[in-house]
């Protein structure tokens, strides 16, 4: 609980973070920034879990534990994505979406 700040303000913040991430995912041209957008989305979800736990259901720690797992999974996901992007960079010497895209219909 934070003094003077209600749950609405924090949930608004996390929603904004989530949609900034979604917007970035669809508009960014660089694969690394797309990955950063995904981090925003996952962090918004983790924030949501912690806030809901603290403000609404402080008796059990389910939400807090869930957020720890989200952070661990996000790290694994990022590591794998970076590895694949580095491999792509070796092949085409670029991480811009327009240079790497070959598969289209």
């Amino acid at each position, binding site marked *: 609980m934070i003094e003077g700040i209600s749950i609405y303000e924090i949930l608004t913040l996390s929603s904004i973070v989530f949609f900034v991430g979604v917007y970035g995912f669809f508009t960014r041209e660089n694969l690394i920034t797309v990955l950063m957008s995904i981090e925003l989305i996952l962090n918004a*979800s983790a924030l*949501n879990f912690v806030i809901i736990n603290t403000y609404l259901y402080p008796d059990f720690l389910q939400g807090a*534990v*869930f957020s720890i797992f989200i952070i661990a999974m996000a790290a*694994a996901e990022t590591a794998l994505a970076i*590895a694949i992007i580095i*491999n792509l960079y070796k092949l085409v010497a670029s991480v811009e979406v327009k240079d790497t895209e070959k598969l289209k219909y």
Partner: protein
Amino acid sequence: MNLESFLLMRYEIGLLAVILLLIVFEIFLNKKHKGSLIDIAIVLFTIHTIIGFLPLADGSIFGGMFKTNALLHFFKSTLNVGVLILLLQSADWLKEKVVQQNKSTEFFILLFSSLLGMYYMISSGDFLMFYIGLELATLPVAALVAYETFKQDSAEAGVKFILSSALASGTALLGVSFLYATTGTIYFDAMAEVLTMSNLSILGFIFFFSGLAFKISLVPFHFWTADVYEGAPISIASFLSVISKGAAVIILMIILFTVMKPLMPVWIKVIYMVSIATMFLGNIFALRQKNMKRFLAYSSIAQAGFILLGFLSNDQLGYTTIIYFVAIYIFSNLGAFGVVQAISLATGKENMDDYEGLYRTNPKLSLVMMLALFSLAGIPPLAGFFGKFFLYTAAASQGYYLLVFIAVVNATISLYYYLLVIRAMFLRKNENAIPFFKSQPYMRLGLLLASIGILVIGMYSPIYEYIYSISNSFLN
């Protein structure tokens, strides 16, 4: 906690033992004999599959986080058989292309880890276990999609897959957090009791559903499918379209019919719309494909639309048809992908035009392909017909006649493009047809098992009756 309750996780423990044994073999095997690891892996997995058929008790452990019942046992065994066929079909590709780079063991470890994730995902009893299982099922596949590290297509497909699946799981998590906000719990059983219809819970459901819809590649979340299937190695495209999609359908069914039952009036509408959109879009895009992998990708999108028909009927018939259709779909698609794999391995050709005149040179392969495609299209004596027929019955029993009509129209459209391939193989003459080649024994066994599956599941009715008798067990 005693041994008996641990043994409820027999499938998971068995698969973990297989993975660990493979690591041990990888460490201690001489470099010259690395090729024999493929045989060892297939033998170990066959043993694991056979053990899977032994009876197992129902129950739940870890305070309800892990649940198991007769339906899940059946489905895990089905997944096992599917993966076994897939291993047999990809053994030659591994032997010819991957062993030289000395990374065939990683292939098996990643594939089995993904299967382990699917086990945990479908037996999960709360959203935390579900999320961990989902990620464990997804991440190794992303590494496998980008497995041919020297090919740009493969790397690009890997990037597309990992980014879109991370977006999907992020979206699903936000949905789960909203559901948690309305109910105060993440356990399926506890949530089912207190979940009520409210704006926040509907929003949570929508986000959660869109996350899972990515995995099943339902329209409008299907954009990654065709690109990833085309770029990935064929066995991985097959794995994604068959095993991964089947597991996601089952967990979607379990969650919708147990946890989200109070929201049923809402999700019925969502499923209705998504089903129509998926069938039409998948079929129309499949019409214009020339590459066989892209063609099968769009055909598998359209099939996912058909599976959704079974969700409209909330009774034993509905559950049975979903599982029955998924089992049939697994075998049919494995047959089709197996033939594409065999031809691609022997000649490197993947386009539909290259298949012209195939019947004259390779009659057996053409017959397997014909069986698989007819089963996917739903031609009477084969399994696919019965699967589709029961799906129509399930939807019609609830009065969705318009939807059944649309589905029949779509089945007709799909018949057209499946017949295009069959016409190319059987009726067209071609001077430069693919020459006769003989596949390796593993590949032939894999194709044979898939064909037997297509024929037997349709004609041997005790299988349907068995699924019917166990299909209620996930509700308890």
